[in-house]
């Protein structure tokens, strides 16, 4: 009899605690989620870039979703250099063909994958980019070759709307 009573009491208290905990969780979530990107940020439109004025061997930097995007019109030497690299030499193996659909144009997020600095153009040991913050060297395909960065620079979603216009995002 006594035991039964204890059980029932335990059940009541456990249920109260459990239901209360659910409520606390449900209350905390909005307070956390409010810091996630809001609807206006998520809806940010893609950026269209006119690249007709970029001559071979030049890079332009455009702002997309608050970050720099490098658009480089590569020279034939650079393309050849990028294609010649053996996969086993790469820390993060990716073929150049996969990174630049149109080999003349390399479109990538200009953010070092180490800690987010913006690498410098045509610097470093591999004629690509060099990150001044902690010394990461990228090649002409934006792949990491030397230094602390773990992966190649990211390729955003983009497409050629026409021969002179790239739509990023």
């Amino acid at each position, binding site marked *: 009899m006594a035991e039964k009573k204890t059980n029932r009491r335990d059940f009541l208290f456990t249920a109260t605690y459990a239901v209360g905990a659910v409520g606390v969780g449900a209350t905390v979530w*909005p*307070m956390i*989620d*409010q*810091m*996630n990107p*809001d*609807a*206006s*940020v998520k809806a940010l439109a893609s950026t269209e870039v006119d690249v007709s004025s970029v001559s071979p061997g030049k890079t332009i930097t455009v702002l997309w979703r608050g970050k720099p995007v490098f658009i480089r019109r590569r020279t034939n030497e650079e393309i050849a250099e990028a294609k010649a690299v053996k996969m086993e030499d790469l820390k993060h193996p990716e073929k150049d063909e996969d990174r630049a659909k149109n080999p003349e144009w390399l479109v990538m997020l200009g953010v070092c994958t180490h800690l987010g600095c913006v690498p410098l153009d045509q610097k470093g040991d591999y004629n690509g980019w060099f990150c001044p913050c902690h010394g990461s060297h990228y090649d002409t395909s934006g792949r990491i070759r030397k230094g602390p960065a773990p992966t190649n620079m990211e390729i955003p979603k983009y497409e050629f709307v026409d021969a002179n216009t790239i739509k990023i995002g």
Partner: protein
Amino acid sequence: MSDHEYTPKSKVGKWFNDRLPLLTLANHLTEYPTPKNLNYWWTFGGILTFCLITQIVTGLVLAMHYIAHADMAFDSVEHIMRDVNYGWLIRYIHANGASMFFLAVYIHIFRSLFYGSYKAPREIIWIIGIIIYLLMMAAAFMGYVLPWGQMSFWGATVITNLFSAIPLIGEGIVTWLWGGYSVDNPTLTRFFTLHYLIPFLILGLVVLHIWALHVPGNNNPVGIDIKKPSKDTVPFHPYIVIKDGFALLMFMIVFAFFVFYTPNILGHADNYIEANPLVTPAHIVPEWYLLPFYAILRSVPDKLLGVVAMLSAILILAALPWLDTSKIRSAVFRPLYRQFYWILVADVLILGYVGAMPAEGLYLLIARIATAYYFLHFLVILPVLGFKEKTLPIPLSITEPILGGSPNLAAAKKKES
């Protein structure tokens, strides 16, 4: 603070507690002997703590998205309402939370008035409470300015202009408050800063309020001193915690109803119109919780005296422990005071009502009579009553009426008389 020495059982606990006695504090708070006859009016202290924390948490969240600039404030509020994840929910909780906070604080204050909780030895608790109440009004007023709607702007203009009533330096003070020649961007940014600061001041004062409470312990519906711990008390945890929790949930149901189903009923439509310094809304009305004082302000035909009357109406409360000369705390044993108490409640409600009405004709007359009575109550009735009133005999302990067969105080009182 503690009634008995507390030693943690574990070695680590003891080591820690010897250096920082947090465990002693926790033990004090759980064991704190509380009169067992507290009724539901006593749950509003806990409810108010909940309100304060809710306002601080939702306020912090809003501050992450709000922009304190005259050109962008209104837009940023709409941004919160439309785009920020759960922004509408958090803003509506914050806006209605202010009203719920005041609802709770008024119940808390009137409970204190009924049961004489402000009397010796609890004067300091009471005075800290009045300061908290003043700060709440300041915070609420400045918070109302932040959305930069028409009511924000004109409310700020009217209230800051109260200071111009001060002779000689008044105009200078108003210009100083504004940071310009009218309510404008500098006013908004400083109001935002202060609105952010004040809740933390309140939080600090709440700690003092509770500390001061824990020295003599709670008053109770019978209003007599109790030995603690004794048969008359129960430990705060779990008895009072669960009871406060129950009352808090009831309160939250009401709160939720406002937030989810009538979130704008306590606000004013004009505040959804962006501030315009060229056009004043047809009816300027403060938020409901300030209406009684607004009525007092308007009932005096002189600018300076109106402001003085309004301020005195609040500050007079701080002198209450000495204005009330009766030795008996609880109105349960003060038949005459009980009548006057309810008249005062009605008086304040009437003041609130006429505060929302145009200040003319009959409304103005009612406001004047009600204002006069308000001061009469505190300055004449209360001091005289203490000497004239024939009080009922009070029980020796709070268990006595209970042992007498009924926990019901009214019945117990009947038995006494």
